[in-house]
C-alpha cells in the first residue's frame, strides 16, 4: 500500500520531508516536481513560518493563504505529526523506514534527543539517505544558533556586502542563505541516490546553509585568506565594468520611480552607448572610471526622460547589457518568462486557483507540471497513515487521541 506514484525521472523515490520554511522544503519541491513521492511533515504545535509570511492570496494573511508555502511545497503530501509524543516518534520511525530520503532542518541535536537522528535511523535502515540542514552545521561552537535565513545572511557575510560604503549595510532581500543552499543539497541528494542504486550504501549530508552561500563569496574569501584586501560593500560599482549601475526612469503612467540596470563590460559596448548619449566613445575603462560621476550624471539625465522598457530595448539593440528593474507585475507579463512557462497555475480547493513558479530547469525530454498544490495543514493525514503505514481507522483514532496528530 502506498500513495500513487508521481510521473517523471524520480517516480517511485520516497521522501520524508521534515524540513521547514524555505531552504529544506525547496529541495523536496524540486524532487516532487520530477515524480518523487514527498511526504511533508509539519508540527501541529509550531506553525511553519512560511505559512505566516506572504505573499498571501489577495493580501489576506492566513495559514492556507501563503504563496511562499505554496511555492516550496507544491506536489507534496501533507502530514501533521508531533514528534514530542511517543506515538508521533513511532510514526516517524515507520515513515523513515518507508523513505529513501529523509530531509530535516531541526536545530542540531534535537532529533538526537528523541533518538530520531541519522545514527539511530541508520540502525533501522542502513541504506537511508539523510539531509540535515541548519544555518551553521551539525557541529562546532555555534551549532546551536537557530533562526532563519536572515540570520544566515548575517553570518554568511552577505548582509554586510549589500549596500553603500558610506552607510550601514542594506542587505539583500530576505533570508539569503535559503536561496543557494537548496541547490547544493538537491545536487548531493540526487548524487547519493545514484550512488545507492550502484552500491546499496546510505549517505548522510550535513549542510551548513551559511557555508553554501559562502561558496558564492569564494573569490572574496580566498582573496582575504591569502593576503589580499577584505571585500567591503561598494554600492553598484564593479571592479571591471564602467558604467555599471542602476539609473532612474519614468513609469508609463508618469509616476517617478522606475529603474534600469546597465552594465558596460567592454570598450566596444561603451562606444555604442556613447553614441546614444553623445559622449566620447573612445574613453578607456580607466578613463571612464576617472570620469564616473560625470558619466553617471549624463546617463541618469538620459534615462530620466525615458521609460525603463524603452531604455532596455534600445540598449540591448545596441548590444549593451541592460534590463528594467522588474516589478512582480513586470515578471507576470515578461514575455521571456512566459516563453519558459515559468508561472504555473494549479487548481486549488480553497482559492479556486493558485500560482507557483515552475522548475528552474527545462529538461527537453522530461517536461513537468507540479501534480498538485501544496498540502493544506494535515490534509493527507488519514491517507498517509492508512495507505503508507497500513493503520486501521481505530489505530488512527488512538493516535489522534494521544495528541500525535494535532
Amino acid at each position, binding site marked *: 500500500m502506498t500513495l500513487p506514484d508521481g510521473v517523471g525521472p524520480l517516480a517511485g523515490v520516497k521522501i520524508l520531508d521534515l524540513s521547514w520554511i524555505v531552504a529544506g522544503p525547496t529541495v523536496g519541491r524540486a524532487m516532487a516536481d520530477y515524480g518523487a513521492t514527498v511526504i511533508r511533515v509539519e508540527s501541529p504545535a509550531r*506553525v511553519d513560518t512560511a505559512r*505566516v509570511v*506572504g505573499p498571501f*492570496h*489577495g493580501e489576506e494573511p492566513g495559514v492556507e493563504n501563503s*504563496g511562499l508555502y505554496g*511555492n516550496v511545497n507544491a506536489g507534496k503530501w501533507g502530514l501533521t505529526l508531533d514528534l514530542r509524543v511517543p506515538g508521533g516518534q513511532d510514526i516517524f520511525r515507520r515513515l523513515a523506514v518507508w523513505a529513501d530520503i529523509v530531509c530535516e532542518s531541526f536545530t542540531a541535536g534535537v532529533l538526537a534527543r528523541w533518538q530520531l537522528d541519522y545514527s539511530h535511523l541508520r540502525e533501522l535502515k542502513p541504506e537511508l539517505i539523510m539531509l540535515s540542514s541548519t544555518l551553521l*552545521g*551539525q557541529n*562546532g561552537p555555534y551549532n546551536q544558533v537557530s533562526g*532563519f535565513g*536572515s*540570520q544566515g545572511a*548575517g553570518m554568511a*557575510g552577505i*548582509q*554586510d556586502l549589500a549596500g*553603500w560604503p558610506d552607510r550601514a*549595510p*542594506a542587505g539583500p*532581500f*530576505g533570508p539569503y542563505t535559503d536561496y543557494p543552499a537548496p*541547490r*547544493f543539497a538537491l*545536487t548531493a541528494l*540526487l*548524487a*547519493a541516490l545514484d550512488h545507492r542504486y550502484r552500491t546499496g550504501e*546510505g*549517505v548522510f*549530508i550535513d*549542510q*551548513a546553509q551559511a*557555508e553554501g552561500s559562502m*561558496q558564492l*563569496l*569564494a573569490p*572574496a574569501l*580566498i582573496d582575504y585568506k*591569502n*593576503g589580499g584586501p577584505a571585500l*567591503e560593500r561598494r554600492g553598484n560599482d564593479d571592479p*571591471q565594468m564602467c558604467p555599471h549601475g542602476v539609473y532612474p526612469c519614468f513609469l508609463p503612467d508618469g509616476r517617478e520611480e522606475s529603474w*534600469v*540596470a546597465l552594465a558596460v563590460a567592454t570598450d566596444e559596448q561603451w562606444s555604442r552607448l556613447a553614441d546614444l548619449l553623445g559622449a566620447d566613445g573612445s574613453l578607456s575603462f580607466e578613463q571612464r572610471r576617472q570620469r564616473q560621476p560625470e558619466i553617471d550624471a549624463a546617463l541618469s539625465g538620459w534615462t530620466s526622460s525615458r521609460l525603463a522598457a524603452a531604455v532596455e530595448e534600445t540598449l*540591448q539593440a545596441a548590444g549593451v*547589457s541592460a*534590463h528594467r*528593474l*522588474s516589478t*512582480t507585475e513586470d*515578471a507576470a507579463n515578461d*514575455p*521571456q518568462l512566459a*516563453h519558459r512557462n515559468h508561472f504555473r497555475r494549479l487548481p486549488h480547493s480553497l482559492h479556486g486557483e493558485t500560482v507557483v*513558479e515552475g522548475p*528552474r530547469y527545462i*529538461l*527537453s525530454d*522530461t517536461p513537468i507540471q507540479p501534480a498538485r498544490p501544496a498540502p493544506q495543514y494535515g490534509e493527507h493525514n488519514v491517507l498517509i497513515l492508512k495507505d503508507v503505514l497500513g493503520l486501521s481507522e481505530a489505530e488512527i483514532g488512538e493516535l489522534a487521541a494521544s495528541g500525535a496528530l494535532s
Partner: protein
Amino acid sequence: MLSPYRIIDLTDERGVLAGQMLADLGADVIQVEPPTGSTGRGIAPFFADHPGESIYWAAYTRGKRGITCDLSAPRGRDLLLRLLETADFLIESSDIGVMAELGLDYEALHERFPKLIYTSISAFGQTGPKAHYVGSDLAIWAAGTPLLMSGDDDRAPVRISQPQAWGHASGDAAGGSMLALHARHQSGRGQHVDISAQVSAAQATLAQVLAHQLGAADPERYGGGVKIRGQAIRGTADVADGYIVLLMGPGPAVGHFANHAVKWLVDIGAAEPELLDEDFVTYADRAATGKADPALFPRIQDIMRDAVATRTKQQMLDISIEYDLLLAPVLDIVDLGNSPQLGHRSFWQELEHTDGRRVTYPGPPLNILVDGEQQGICRRPPPELGQHNAEVYTELGLSSVDIDRLRSEGTI
C-alpha cells in the same frame, strides 16, 4: 559518489561553479579552455602576490582537471568529439548560437551521443524573445526581480558586491544535470538541460516574484529590512562594533523568540519582571481585540535596541545562543576569515598550487558521510592552462607524437 561519471566542462566565468559542484561530489570534471585561456581567467579579484592570476577562476576550477582545445578549428572539434565518447555530461555557458555555429549544439551532438546530458547555462534561456539579450550579473538580478527589492529607500536599488547571479544559475545547472541523469536511468537517453539565470535569480525573492499574480503588493526596498505597503520593518540593529540581524515580532511563528528576548531583558534589569507574564505568541490577536496593550510591543523593541547597542557582535551571538533569540551578528569578510565555527568545521582547505604556493580555499559546501565514512576532501588545486593535456589526451589513446603535433599546430 559520482566517481563513475565524466563531465566535459566548456563553461566560462558564467557557469564554472556547476562542474565544481559535481567535482566536489566525486565526478571527473575536465575544464576545457581555448588555447589562449578562458575569459574567466580575466575576472577579478586577482591574487595579491600573483596579480596575473584570477582568484575567481581558481575558486571555481579547484577540483577539476584542465585541458585546452581550440573549438574554432576542425581538428579541435574532432578532438572534443573523441573526448565526448567518454563523457556523460557536457556543460556550457556560451553566448546563444555559438555552439550551433561550431556544430556542437545539443541537436547535433544528441544524434551522435544519445546518452550525453547536455546542460546549457545562459542569462535568459536558449530560446525566447530575450534569449539574445546581453546578460550581466546586474541585469539578471534586475530581470529576476530581487534587485528592485534591495537597498536603501532613498537611493537606487543595490546589488550584493560579490556578483551572485551566475552562481545561482550554476547551482541550478548542477541540480538539473543530476535530474537528467536520473531520467537517463529510466529512458537510456540524455537530454538538453536549459538553465536561465533570470529564473534562478527569481528564487532570491522568497516567492515574492509571485506577489502580483496572487493579488498581493510588492515588497519595497528598505535598508536593513523591508517595506510592506509603505510600512517599514527593520531587520537589523546597531551594536557597539557593527550590526546584528534582529527580528522581533509577535505571533505564532516567532512570538516565542520575543518571549525569550523579554527573559533576557528582565535578567539584565532592562525590563520589568512583570513582562514575563506576557506571551507574545498570542499577543497580536489580543492586541487587535483590545485585550492587550498595543503600545507594549513597540516599547519592548525600543528597550531591546537600547540593550543591544552597548554590546558587541560576539556578546550578542553568545546571548542569542544562551537565550535562543532570533538574532545573529552581521559578519564581514574578516570575521568569516577568523570564525571559530568555520575553523572547527575545517571549512578552510589549503591546496598546493602547481608552482608550489600553498593557497587557502573555502572547502566543499557539504559535509558528507557515505556508508558512515567521512568523504575525502577534493584536494586537486585549480589547473594551470592546459595542465592535463598530456594526461587526458593520452587516456584517449593519443600518442605523444599526436599530442606534440596538436600542440605545434595550436589545437591544444
